[in-house]
């Protein structure tokens, strides 16, 4: 039964819909949310927006936001966070997978090539100067991305134009891999071409001339050491067409280019090592976390609390006792291996003095932090140590007590498994600290140390509600000095190498200048200066020593990760020892399998779908 009134309503509604829906070009409207090239490239502000997107997509292997967990897989740290997201595997994997460092980042390469082409086509209203500047900045990003690929994969196809399938010519899309040396040469020539056009003044968040030089400096150093040390292997890793393997004859050329780029940055006077706090430890910590007045940083990935651009690196990695959230903390626990790499301020080797010379007894310390006295200032800026404070609160790292048993003339060890609060021994004094270390605890230090570098000092920043806006530093002057030192040393220019090394060491509070230099010293300097800045694994790879240091042997101290467990001595009646502190050096309890880096890991495998899609791509050695 129809009700005329409601029928009328339906008819009117249908008419209204019909009359509005059949616009002629309905399918040809402009998207309200997507900007096509002809709109984007007329407006400099929109191009800057595009650049911001590309900067953000630059691959890093362990930054504050991307894959930071990997610091525990191949930097100097043990995974001490939660175990339920598969991260426990970082302590238990038996060898590095063939694709550990795989990167085939042609999505970003294509976007940049497309932007470069579209800017030529549509950027008619831009001035020539604007165009040249943007062009240089896009090319910097592309060169940086190629560097990230070549250091992981060896030679990759160099694509500088937009590849399309429009022409139906598929064979031309099957671009073979370039030689490894050609990719490094490409990066150098791009850097030379753009460094004077890129502008950007002294910006630390957009690349300027010195960021371009810093890229060149680092890339050429990698190229030089690959040429030298790969060829020095008993059986160099190569492919017949040079996709992998750089001839030794190119080493000096690369080192020279690296040194020249470093000199240009250093001599410009634009940058200086951060040196405003008289305490070397605090100074080094501020060098990475202070943004205002920091003339050391050349290029950083910035975050800003007021714009809501933040990250949870502090939440995940702050020490347990000083965390401000109810979860998280302590994931990256630096190892004793790293702590002992920091020299003493008199320049002597950094091994901690834990046992008497005849190894019969412990050395007893009055305070829990005394064992670290007179160490390189960078140690205090990189690692939260027992006996230190953070944000005004004690970090509280103590494993337990050692109780003297007079009958057996030996100590028995007492530890608590209470996590996150101080537990007391029967004498009413501290048993185990709120930050651990606890052998089997989650989200609590497993090594007796916590990370300090890049942990935000601002109150509330380790809370997930507020989060942290500490920046991730891509390039800083400290690294440039060390690059220069290494390149100069390899070229036999010892005076310049020493000068650069000593500048970095003096800032760290080391009192005596080096008079002589060895390769081991330079390598160790990079390890301690640049710890947790995404350098260690790349350095080991380009020096071709990763397979020796991490040979998977249970008896190799370099392949195992060590912890330092501090104990308070309970020995009433022995005033020289009672209440003092002693330390046990052990393999970190959660660390289960020695690191095992095989020769095939020097170049990560190429994905099967890439090989399937392009038969011209040669596989890696051992793939």
């Amino acid at each position: 039964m129809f009700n005329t009134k409601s029928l009328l309503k339906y008819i009117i509604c249908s008419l209204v819909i019909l009359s509005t829906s059949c616009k002629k070009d309905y399918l040809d409207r402009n998207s309200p949310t997507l900007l096509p090239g002809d709109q984007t490239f007329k407006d400099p502000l929109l191009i800057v927006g595009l650049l911001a997107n590309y900067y953000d997509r630059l691959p890093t292997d362990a930054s504050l936001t991307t894959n930071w967990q990997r610091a525990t897989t191949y930097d100097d740290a043990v995974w001490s966070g939660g175990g339920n997201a598969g991260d426990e595997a970082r302590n238990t994997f038996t060898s590095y997978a063939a694709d550990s460092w795989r990167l085939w980042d042609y999505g970003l390469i294509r976007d940049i090539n497309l932007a470069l082409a579209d800017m030529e086509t549509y950027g008619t209203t831009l001035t020539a100067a604007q165009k040249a500047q943007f062009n240089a900045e896009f090319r910097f990003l592309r060169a940086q991305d190629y560097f990230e690929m070549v250091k992981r994969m060896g030679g990759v196809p160099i694509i500088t134009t937009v590849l399309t399938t429009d022409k139906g010519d598929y064979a031309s899309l099957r671009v073979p891999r370039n030689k490894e040396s050609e990719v490094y040469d490409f990066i150098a020539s791009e850097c030379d071409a753009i460094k004077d056009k890129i502008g950007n003044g002294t910006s630390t968040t957009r690349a300027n001339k010195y960021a371009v030089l810093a890229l060149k400096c680092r890339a050429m150093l990698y190229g030089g050491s690959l040429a030298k040390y790969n060829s020095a292997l008993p059986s160099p890793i190569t492919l017949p067409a040079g996709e992998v393997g750089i001839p030794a004859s190119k080493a000096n050329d690369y080192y020279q280019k690296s040194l020249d780029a470093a000199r240009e940055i250093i001599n410009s006077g634009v940058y200086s090592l951060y040196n405003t706090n008289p305490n070397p430890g605090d100074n080094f910590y501020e060098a990475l976390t202070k943004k205002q007045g920091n003339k050391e940083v050349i290029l950083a990935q910035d975050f800003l609390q007021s714009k809501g651009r933040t990250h949870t690196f502090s939440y995940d990695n702050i020490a347990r006792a000083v965390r401000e959230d109810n979860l998280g903390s302590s994931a990256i626990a630096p190892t004793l291996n790293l702590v002992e790499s920091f020299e003493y301020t008199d320049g002597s080797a950094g091994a901690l003095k834990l046992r008497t010379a005849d190894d019969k007894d412990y050395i007893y310390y009055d305070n829990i932090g005394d064992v670290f006295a007179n160490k390189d200032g960078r140690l205090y800026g990189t690692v939260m140590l027992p006996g230190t404070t953070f944000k005004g609160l004690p970090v509280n790292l103590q494993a337990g007590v050692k109780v003297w048993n007079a009958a057996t003339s030996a100590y028995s060890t007492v530890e608590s498994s209470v996590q996150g609060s101080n537990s007391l021994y029967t004498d009413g004094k501290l048993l185990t600290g709120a930050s651990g270390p606890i052998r089997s605890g989650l989200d609590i230090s497993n090594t007796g140390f916590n990370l300090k570098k890049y942990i935000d000092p601002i109150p509330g920043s380790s809370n997930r509600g507020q989060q942290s806006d500490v920046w991730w530093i891509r390039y800083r002057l400290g690294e440039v000095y060390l690059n220069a030192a290494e390149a100069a040393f390899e070229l036999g220019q010892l005076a310049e190498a020493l000068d650069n090394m000593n500048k970095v060491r003096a800032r760290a509070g080391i009192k005596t200048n080096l008079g002589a230099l060895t390769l081991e010293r330079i390598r160790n300097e990079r390890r301690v200066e640049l710890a947790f800045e995404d350098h260690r694994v790349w350095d080991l790879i380009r020096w071709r020593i990763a397979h020796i240091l991490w040979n998977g042997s249970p008896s190799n101290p370099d392949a195992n990760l060590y912890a330092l467990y501090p104990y308070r001595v309970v020995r009433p009646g022995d005033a020289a020892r009672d209440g003092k502190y002693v330390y046990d050096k052990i393999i970190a309890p959660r660390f289960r399998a020695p690191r095992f880096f095989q020769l095939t890991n020097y170049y990560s495998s190429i994905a099967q779908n890439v090989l399937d899609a392009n038969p011209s791509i040669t596989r890696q050695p051992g793939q």
Partner: protein
Amino acid sequence: MKSVGQKFVLSIALLCVLWGCTKDNYKEPQSTITGRVVYQGQPIGVRSNGVTLELWQHGYALFNKVAVNVAQDGTFSVKIFDGNYLLTRLRGNGPWMDQIDSIPINLNGTANIDVPVTPYFTLSNDAFTFNKADSTISGTFNIAQVVTSKAIENITFHVSTTGIVDATNQIAFASISVAPPANAFTAPVTLKIDIRPRMYTAGTQATAALLLGDILKKKYAYVRFGVKPIGVAERVYTMVKRIELQ
């Protein structure tokens, strides 16, 4: 209290779950390829979890390898569907020469494949003795060079509590590594390892000392030799042997 309707919907859903997974699922693979990695008919000892072969099958949209792990005694086995496969030796992977020829396998039920390789060395005549007086295990074996392009980097002697023994295995805790003697290819090589726990006193050897005490109590251990060619990741091993410690 659930209404009848809710119960009805729930039971229908349950039935759907029970019935849902039959029609288009494959049966699990039933066929087996077994085999050995051999040189002159003799299997080659390798590191457990270290060496892989690859199985490839053409003709499907997804073209991806099936990795076949070789066990420490040089054998392998894989459960897979019937069909035509190509078995390849991954380059630069095992302690043998690269060989790019693939081995066709027509699988129908079972297949037993000997994969010929050319190792850099072959090891033979391995014998071990336990000297109770000073608690040492000594072993002797012969090395023959097959390919002259690679010299020996080092020779290792591994002792372990369990039957899986190699240079990286977690349980392998006592091993020595020596440079090759000048006459390594002409005379038998003899190595000796002291297994008294009190010889392992460094703080980092606590586990080793503990496990050595353990095997001395159990009165048996597993031993094998390894020889590493220069510039190759993997060693050639002798077969694991059990030795009685009494």
